[in-house]
């Protein structure tokens, strides 16, 4: 029976159940919708509901005031280090809460990524490779979305939240196609165009999208073309996405939970991130700015680290308590670290030669430290690694095959940069 015949002229209540029918029919047909052709194991992976929350430290946090302190050295600054819950691992005293929560976290102290310019370093650390003219490499969130999201997902699959204006940069799906572009949130926590206009009633909104589907099917059933199918998929997702707007609304959380994350510019989006991930969103990036402490590095870090420590600990506790940490990978990363040398304004400048990041939760061997810098933190002396290896590690932790390639014209583009390998020491 034709969709349209089924639908039109029925009562509104009958309409709603017909809608459910229609969705089932469509879902059965999903397998041919993915342009890039997903092998069976990828479908298997999608069912496991894995997710990533990326805490993006925009501007570049100092490794010396966070994960790789060097107190007592001339590069060390005024803060002490503290013993953590893992024997032998010490971090900055600015992260006291995290010091007792390292069981699920691995620290990587040996990133040497070479690029120390904000724009280019952002591209490097959010794409896992140096750019190349003419090739639009996708950002991390788009790759994760493409790997982990169901094609007909009723929730967003790549969300970015930048509440502050500094370092605000929108990710892109590049050659993976607009299907995987991020939902980008800035001033408002509710995504643009997600709310129904007052000028149309909900039932009419639903019915007109049914009508549109009928009209589109009149056309698409005669063709067999993946780009045409992507149009269908995009519109099929609209109603589901609109129904997901409550996920962004943290006022629906009990007051105690809101207090747990704190009423801050960083805490609130992180709570929203947890709500999104809980509902099946595969990738959420929450940016916290602005770490670019060329002057007054220590004042800046006293404030920002307190925030990071509080929110990151709250997030990990919450995820763990809900049983979500085994399937959620939390990454703290920025575009680079900061110079060991302290400049004349008591600041630290851009530094990409020896810096740190962390991975927690899904697929990660917690309580580990990988790599080592010298006594002053100027160079990596053990386990040097880079953005490509980090991406291979992230993908491996999530069970994503790092050997796969996308054909771009005649050229195979590997999912991670050439020669990249996962850091096995931090994988569970």
């Amino acid at each position, binding site marked *: 029976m*034709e969709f*349209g*015949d089924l639908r*039109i*002229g029925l009562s509104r209540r009958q309409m709603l159940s017909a809608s459910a029918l229609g969705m089932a029919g469509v879902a059965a047909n999903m397998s041919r919708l993915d*342009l*890039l052709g997903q092998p069976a194991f990828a479908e298997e992976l999608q069912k496991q509901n894995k997710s990533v929350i990326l805490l993006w430290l925009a501007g570049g946090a100092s490794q010396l005031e966070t994960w790789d302190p060097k107190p007592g050295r001339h590069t060390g600054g005024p803060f002490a280090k503290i013993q953590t819950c893992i024997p032998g691992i010490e971090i900055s005293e600015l992260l006291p809460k995290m010091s007792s929560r390292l069981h699920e976290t691995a620290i990587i102290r040996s990133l040497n990524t070479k690029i120390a310019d904000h724009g280019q370093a952002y591209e490097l650390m959010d794409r896992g490779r140096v750019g*190349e*003219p*003419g*090739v*639009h490499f996708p950002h991390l969130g788009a790759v994760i979305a493409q790997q982990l999201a169901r094609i007909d997902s009723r929730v967003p699959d790549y969300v970015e939240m930048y509440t502050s204006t500094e370092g605000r940069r929108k990710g892109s*799906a590049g*050659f*993976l*196609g*607009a*299907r*995987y*572009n991020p939902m980008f949130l800035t001033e408002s926590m509710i*995504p*643009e*165009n*997600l*709310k*129904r*206009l007052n000028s*149309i*009633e909900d039932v*009419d*909104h639903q019915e*007109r*999208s049914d*009508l*549109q589907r*009928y*009209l*589109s099917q*009149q*056309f*698409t059933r*005669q*063709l*067999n*073309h993946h*780009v*045409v199918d*992507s*149009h269908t*998929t*995009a*519109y099929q*997702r*609209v109603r589901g*996405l*609109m129904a997901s707007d409550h996920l962004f609304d943290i006022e629906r959380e009990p007051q105690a939970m809101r207090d747990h994350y704190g009423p801050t510019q960083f805490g609130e989006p992180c709570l929203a991130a947890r709500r999104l991930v809980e509902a099946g969103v595969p990738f959420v990036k929450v940016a916290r700015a602005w770490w670019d402490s060329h002057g007054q590095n220590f004042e800046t870090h006293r404030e920002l680290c307190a925030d990071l420590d509080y929110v990151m600990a709250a997030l990990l506790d919450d995820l763990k308590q809900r049983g979500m940490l085994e399937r959620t990978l939390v990454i703290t990363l920025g575009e680079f670290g900061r110079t060991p040398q302290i400049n004349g304004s008591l600041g630290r400048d851009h530094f990409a030669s020896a810096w740190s990041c962390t991975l927690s939760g899904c697929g990660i061997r917690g309580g580990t430290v990988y790599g080592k810098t010298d006594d002053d933190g100027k160079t990596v002396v053990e386990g040097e690694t880079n953005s490509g290896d980090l991406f291979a590690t992230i993908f491996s932790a999530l069970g994503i095959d790092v050997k796969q390639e996308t054909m*771009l*014209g*005649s*050229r195979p583009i590997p999912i991670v940069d050439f020669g990249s390998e996962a850091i096995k020491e931090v994988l569970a």
Partner: protein
Amino acid sequence: MLLVSLSLVGLSPRMAAQEPEVGSRTQLAQAIDHEIGLQLADQNWPTAEIVNDAQYLRRVTLDLAGRIPTAKEREEFLADTAAGTEAGKREKLVDRLLASPDFAFHLRNELDILLLAQLQWNNEWRNYLLEAMQQQRPIDALVREILLPEKHRPDDKGAVAFLRQRVNNLDALTNDSSSLLFGVNIACAKCHDHPLVPDWQQDHYFGYASFFKRTFGTRRGLLAERFEGELKFTTVKGEEKRSKFMFLSGQTVEEPAITRSEDQLKTIRDQLKKAEQDDKADPPPSPEFSPREALLKLAFETSSDVKSQPLVARNFANRIWARLMGRGLVHPLDQMHSGNPPSHAALLDRLTDELIKAAYDPKPLMRGIVLSDAYARSAQWPHATPQPGPEAFAVAAPRALTPFQYSLSLWIASRNPEKLPGMTKPDDWLAVRGQWEQRSEGFARRFEIPGELFQVGVEEALLLSNNEQTERDYLASNPDMLVGHLKSINDHNQLVQMAYASVFGRAATAEEQSTIANYLTARADRADAAITQFVWALLTSAEFRFNH
């Protein structure tokens, strides 16, 4: 049409090898069908049917004017019997479209997408391109202007944009210009000789990059070249090499030796530095030897392969074919090399010849393509046998509309069809088109440019579903709008047909008509809203989103 495909299947290659004698106006179209037909016959493949007049009108208007036809244009075209034959009727239409002011606007938008829009929206550049197209400056002139604006477009801040947008990144200058203008993507040859293509080695990459090495942007927003500077690179074997000025074909050019004293050199360097840093500085001196001028000379005056055709001509012939047919004869478009031959080699030679013969005016080439049967095939595959691959051109590929095609078409389809002009005089049309273009820009800038792996994103679906601007621009109910017009029609069947004609450019089938009429009847309590929703559903449907 079944007849045509059967006769093609039965044709022996030897019989078909003679190019048919026909009137000069459609010779190229015949030649295209001949070449495409040879391979179809060889493989014993049938073809899709030829589209009807209404479908052809929509397709070719989108391709030559960058928008859907208005209702009056359609009525006039369908009613046209003056041309005598079906072929004559289509020919007349194509000639009208090529002569219309629409053509320059559309070509401007196409060239912007190809050359810059993926990186930047630049009004000066867009104005420059529009003027060039309106003055019918040919493609070779355009390539000269954008690669050597100092000489060909002095003080034009639009023409410099192609290079300026990439001027701080030698790899981008190198790779984008070679891919887009010459159809040769040599990026892989930067770090090593190309792994798959013996034609392209590191020498080629750095040799070609050398032509751009001395280019810099001045503070006044223009371009200039230094008098010195060479490119060195390290081979995979670790050997350091100084690169020559070498074109993609392997041909090199020697820089004439000019001796200058250290003082003279210092003066020049100071002048150049000043121009780079100070927007009030005098225009910098030009070197006797301009690498980019040498590049252009090699690009146009030497044949780049055995075909004795410049790469730039082959590239544009292939890209024009691809834009109209949904796929290049050489595919991917930036892989023109000996290891990746065209699907129809003789045809690409012929198209390229046509472009050169027309002194790089693209119109005769485009005219020939859109008048061919290969172009006019349906996107539906009617046969029980499997559909041949896209390189057979046996069936049309649905193509996503570009941002401007989509935005302009939404604008036109959502107006009251009776208030839109038909085929008016070109002078009047210029003003109409200019206004449409302006009104469509806002939405055009929000739609994604369809690239190689394009998929419609949910962002677009949300924008058209829930944005106030969508309601205002496309669904307002005043008498100037389609919604307003439909509200004045009482008969549901008539209303449905009017809406289908305005938006899809075709009649509704009996099934569609009754389905929609039922929809409207069921909502008699809120009839106006029901019409608005019907129009929204038409405008956002897949049938409207693609050229097919």
